């Protein structure tokens, strides 16, 4: 189904936005001599390791020519069409702005794709046995559809609504038009029979936030850019030194990748 524009869109996606990364890199500073506490910490992080790790993810800074290809950025579940809707929608929910990157740059749509491919997409650890009844709102989701199916239906409905209202695919709408479509889902102005439009919007919203801020190991929060927005330091072993201090402490974030030795 991919047409030329879609292929171009996907290709664009593979080009990292160097200027944005450079703009964002190391706006904070590392805390010198942060004590690594406890047994686990000392086992896992040798001192020389942590020095190089401070640049983890910011490889452009050191050796742009050798930037690793991110093999994680491919699709496990979405079709290309679905992916492009998702990418455009999440970027409207969490847009790039003066504060820093938006959902697209952070890889949120890849995050959602990967999540749907696994247990979460299949409601693997949730009670999905019948009988199914329509319950009170206080009783929560009572449908028989799994998240994958809900996304398949929801994204198609977004496309249908866009085509009907603006005679264009969702990804080709102006940002304002995309917002109109999202708003129509959020408020249940779109009437759907199989799924709840507002329920679907809530799910997209929730997974956008997850993709922006979960550890980068899941494919989102690219370059820890989500964490840097909030000055969240990620996976630090100890805050004993700063817990009582009045001054706000900006640190270079650290991801879980540093908890494994990488040769």
């Amino acid at each position: 189904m991919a047409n030329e524009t879609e292929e171009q869109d996907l290709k664009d996606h593979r080009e990292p936005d160097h200027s944005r990364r450079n703009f964002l890199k190391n706006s904070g500073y590392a805390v010198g001599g942060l004590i690594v506490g406890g047994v686990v910490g000392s086992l896992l992080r040798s001192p020389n390791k942590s020095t190089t790790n401070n640049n983890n993810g910011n490889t452009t800074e050191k050796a742009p020519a050798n930037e690793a290809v991110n093999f994680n950025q491919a699709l496990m579940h979405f079709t290309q069409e679905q992916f492009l809707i998702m990418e455009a929608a999440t970027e409207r929910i969490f847009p790039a702005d003066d504060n820093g990157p938006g959902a697209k740059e952070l890889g949120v749509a890849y995050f959602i794709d990967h999540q749907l491919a696994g247990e979460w997409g299949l409601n693997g650890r949730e009670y999905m046995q019948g009988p199914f009844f329509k319950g009170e709102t206080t009783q929560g989701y009572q449908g028989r559809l799994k998240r994958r199916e809900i996304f398949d239906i929801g994204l198609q409905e977004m496309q249908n609504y866009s085509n009907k209202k603006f005679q264009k695919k969702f990804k080709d709408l102006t940002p304002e038009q995309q917002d109109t479509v999202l708003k129509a889902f959020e408020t249940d102005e779109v009437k759907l029979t199989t799924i709840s439009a507002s329920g679907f919007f809530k799910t997209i919203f929730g997974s956008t936030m997850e993709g922006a801020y979960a550890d980068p190991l899941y494919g989102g929060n690219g370059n820890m850019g989500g964490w840097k927005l909030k000055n969240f330091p990620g996976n630090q072993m100890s805050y004993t030194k700063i817990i009582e201090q009045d001054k706000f402490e900006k640190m270079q974030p650290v991801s879980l990748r540093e908890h494994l030795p990488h040769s």
Partner: protein
Amino acid sequence: MATKLPKTDVVIVGVGWGGGIIASELTKGGLSVVGLERGKERKTEDYYMVHDELRYALRYEMFQDLSRETITFRGNEKIKALPMRSYGSFLLGDGLGGSGVHWNGQTFRFLPYDFEIKSKTIERYGKSKIPDGMTIQDWGITYDKLEPYFNKFEKMTGISGDENPLGGKRSEKYPTPPMKTTPGMKMFSDSCKGLNYHPYHMPSANLSEQYTNPDGIARAACQYCGYCERFGCEYGAKADPVVTVIPVAKNTGKFELRTHSNVRRILHKGGKATGVLYIDTTTGEEYEQPADIVVMTSYVFNNTRLLLMSNIGKPYDPKTGTGVIGRNYAYQVLKGAGVGFFEDKEFNIFAGAGSLGMCIDDFNGDNFDHKDLKFIHGANISYSQTGARPIQNNTVPPGTPTWGKDYKAATVKYANRHINVGAQGSCMPFRHHFLDLDPTYKDEFGDPLMRITFDFEDQDRELVKFMGAKCGDILKQMGADKVVSNTELAPYEITTYQSTHNTGGVVMGSSPDTSAVNNYLQMWDTENLFVIGASAFAHNSGYNPTGTMGALSYRAAEGIHKYHKNPGSLV
């Protein structure tokens, strides 16, 4: 056909705090104990990758697999109960250590008022203070009688704290000094002092310093990493059964732990428990484990469910108010809260610990006059700094758009510029709040799910209105530029997280007509069966339950020893 195994002195069903304490106390006293745990083994080394908000906090890594077993819920008897298909309101523990692994470590003692709530309420305000349908009752024990067991639990876990100026009398100081004081905690404390309240450090099971407990178990100090609730502790600094009581039991050589062993029935004959029937979930094989004494130590829901499925004790009937199993289900009333936004101040709230905070009890229990109030009891009000993790930390002032550019900008701006003050409201039992077996929905073995019938009452709405305003006052005094208080309580719903403080169902008391167990948590009508947990609470206080649950576990352990030497009713 179930394979019959050799008999043991004691079999325990579920190895969390209750099971761990019973196992360690009984094996130290020379009894042979078999511990059956439906989940997997756990150890500190499991938590190398624990600083993962998505996996642990949002994908519920540590919790019961709901595809195998869940609960059903309805707000009242007129509507059909439906299964809790995904997590929301509370999180059910699973695996060795149970909920004792993923807790925050906030370890309070219930107030003297709690244990004699009915008598004391009538004494001070008269009978008419208790509204129609509210089934509060005395617990069949006093605070003073329970005090030594609180002490025991606090020493075993190494609780860090300073004395609650408005709490019950203590025989000893907390074993370790309070946790560190953050700027936000200091502001809360100063504000409360300015309002003539009595702030103190939240008693904490996250150790303030290295500590060796009376069993010889040494644990390291908390590193304030900000990953407690919903996570396991990679340092062993947070007290949990796996790093405290379970190794003590194992060291005696008298404790045999069997994981992946899901108990489906308590076996009994002629008014005595004879053992349990369980399934090895790795093979599907069924076993019968005979024992002289059976101790039920699973969570509230499974304690109640197993009794009902095993036909032990009289099931509670809400129509007549008679029967005891499933009676007095209660929860926690949490919506009385406030948030303060600070334009020019950023706090290091990404750092924290599960029980790092300051609190007051000026509006808890009967520490304040309720004469002109339309509720009884109250709430512990606190500021706690548990670690603001980024996916869930999106507090913004009202009026902010719910997504998009402005939403993003506000979440980024206020990520470290807000302080939450909350009231942990007590929850009174009512005649029409109860647990029973669901008639429709089944677990993976075809056994009925537990059904919860529960909603908030006027009592709870009045409490929230009062507490929300108090939280707002404190925040204003703390100097917040904008304070937003919540004083409204909507009907109870199962989809948003509130608290994993479910209580009741197998409550304690002084009469078999209104309680299932006596003050040793011994079943009235099956004397070699003990049922331990917050299931014994006749109501829920304005505190986290674990401290009181731990104290009751130590008392039960003493009772079991007594019973083993001299069988019969302990009261």
